[in-house]
């Protein structure tokens, strides 16, 4: 690949631009509140773990992480399992209304969460799922399922048609072909799609906050509530923020080799 002059400098500056605000958050999370407010220090002079200790020992804090992970994982499983057959259908067959259906799905990926906040609240209260991880997991399907279909469709189309035909000639039934042959072939695509479902469900807050009150409250919502209640506890806020970055960073590390093609949604 051919690059442009001064690329190291540009890349370096851009990475610094990306990392500096994150560094500042990490920096603050290790400072005491008096140090944060009284002096401007580039690194913690009296480093402390008190904020982290508080989060890991106080149930109302750490339960937020568990709640968030719960609905994110649920959502990822639902999205991938319903999207896989659909992706295959869109990739291989032409059927009545296929293009309209695909566009309709895509348009849901683009629908603003703010529009759905209130109706979702009514809907999930009515069917008794309000304040459970299921409510948030199902609500997040509205943008994750279309995205998963979109990504997986690209990967399924990369599998030559002859493989299907050979398998059927060999006497594979459709479900057996799907699980034994197709799924292993697009394993990396499934990984990429799962990564995206995880990502968009993890970062979304508006719906997650609207659909939960006490027992399923996500960490992102707990951050805003506790901080405003106890004045501004900057150190604690920063520590909670740092802890929300970590799952994302871990997931990126696992998919780093697929990340570029993944962001192109399997269609370069």
């Amino acid at each position, binding site marked *: *690949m051919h690059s442009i002059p001064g*690329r*190291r400098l*540009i*890349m370096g500056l*851009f*990475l610094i*631009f*990306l990392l500096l*605000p*994150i560094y*500042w*958050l990490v920096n603050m999370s290790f400072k005491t509140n008096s140090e944060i407010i009284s002096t401007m220090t580039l690194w913690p002079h009296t480093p402390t773990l008190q904020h982290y200790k508080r989060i890991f020992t106080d149930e109302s804090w750490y339960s937020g992480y568990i709640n968030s992970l719960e609905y994110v994982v649920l959502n990822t499983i639902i999205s991938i399992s*319903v999207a896989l057959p*659909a992706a295959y*259908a*869109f990739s*291989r*067959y*032409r*059927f*009545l209304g*296929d293009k309209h*259906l695909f*566009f309709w799905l*895509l348009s*849901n*990926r683009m*629908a*603003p969460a*703010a*529009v*759905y906040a*209130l*109706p979702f609240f*009514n*809907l999930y209260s009515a069917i008794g799922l309000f304040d459970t991880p299921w409510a948030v997991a199902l609500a997040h*399907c*509205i943008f994750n*399922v*279309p995205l998963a279909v979109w990504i997986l*469709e690209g990967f399924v*189309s990369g599998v030559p048609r002859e493989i299907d035909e050979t398998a059927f000639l060999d006497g594979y039934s459709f479900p057996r072909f799907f699980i034994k042959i197709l799924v292993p072939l697009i394993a990396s695509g499934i990984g990429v799609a799962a990564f995206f479902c995880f*990502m968009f469900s993890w970062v979304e*807050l*508006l719906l997650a906050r609207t659909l939960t009150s006490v027992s399923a409250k996500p960490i*992102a919502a707990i*951050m805003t509530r506790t901080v405003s209640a106890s004045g501004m506890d*900057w150190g604690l806020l920063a520590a909670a*923020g740092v802890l929300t*970055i970590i799952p*994302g960073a871990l997931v*990126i590390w696992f998919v*780093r080799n697929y*990340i*570029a093609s993944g*962001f*192109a*949604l399997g269609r*370069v």
Partner: protein
Amino acid sequence: MDKTVNQKAWFLVLPVFLVVAFSAVLPLMTVVNYSMQDTFGNNQFFWNGVGWFKELLDPSTDLGGRFLASLGRNLFFSLVILAIEVPLGIVVALSMPREGWTVAACLVILALPLLIPWNVVGTIWQIFGRPDIGLLGYVLNAAGIDYNYVSNDIDAWVTVIVMDVWHWTSLVALLCYAGLKSIPEAYYQAAQIDGASRWAVFKAIQLPKMNRVLLIAVLLRFMDSFMIYTEPFVVTGGGPGNSTTFVSIELVKIALGQFDLGKAAALSLVYNLIILIVCWIFYTVMTNAGVERKVQAESEPASEPKSAAALKPVPVLKPKEGVA
């Protein structure tokens, strides 16, 4: 790839259809229902017809004025961040290291902002920009620039835009990088033999190859910036005054703040309609781009002299028609 007609494929699509219909169509029906009614609380509703819609599109009323103002701000915001993020993303993608461990390191750091919960992105910049405890605000003020995003409109705008550039340029860069990676080395060798300039290589080889991913990038960035809510809400709360109140923020204010269901529902529908139209335009453009490239690839004579300027992108994977 020619697809066979098979109506049974609907059975494969059915689960997706049901899940999305449950979470999209059902709520949308309640929105349509509310948008025609007025309420005075206590769950008593009155028929209001298209009253809310008339008010919404009339700038002289309170609702219409707020909606159109926030819509204008939102469009301006989307255009500004597209104008910054797309070129910057291309430059960053072109600056990626070629091989070695630095590639993985750069990719991981680039992707990092994308996986931070949106309200934490807001929190990061809220802290970073504060003149008393944030590095950015402190440095700017120490340098003699009076910067305060809480009280100054322009500072608030700059902060929100820089935050979005920080948050999302990586997406554009990663997409472009994926496009660049798919260019075979032979293209560059041909360009080198012809003595093509750096700019010619970019224009004739790299840009056409990135076309497709750039379309996806522009679509995603436009849509997501058009419905931006959490990040500016955390940083500025829509202020100072209403200067950074975007459509979603206005909508949530009306729906969950004032619980004004009829107005909120009417606004939702119009908002959704705008997004649907823009989405459709993009979809058509993307689909046509795919078809055109296919035609172009097929009509291209095999023995065409390979000068750098005449190099046309020959898709490695044939674009599928219908789906972008």
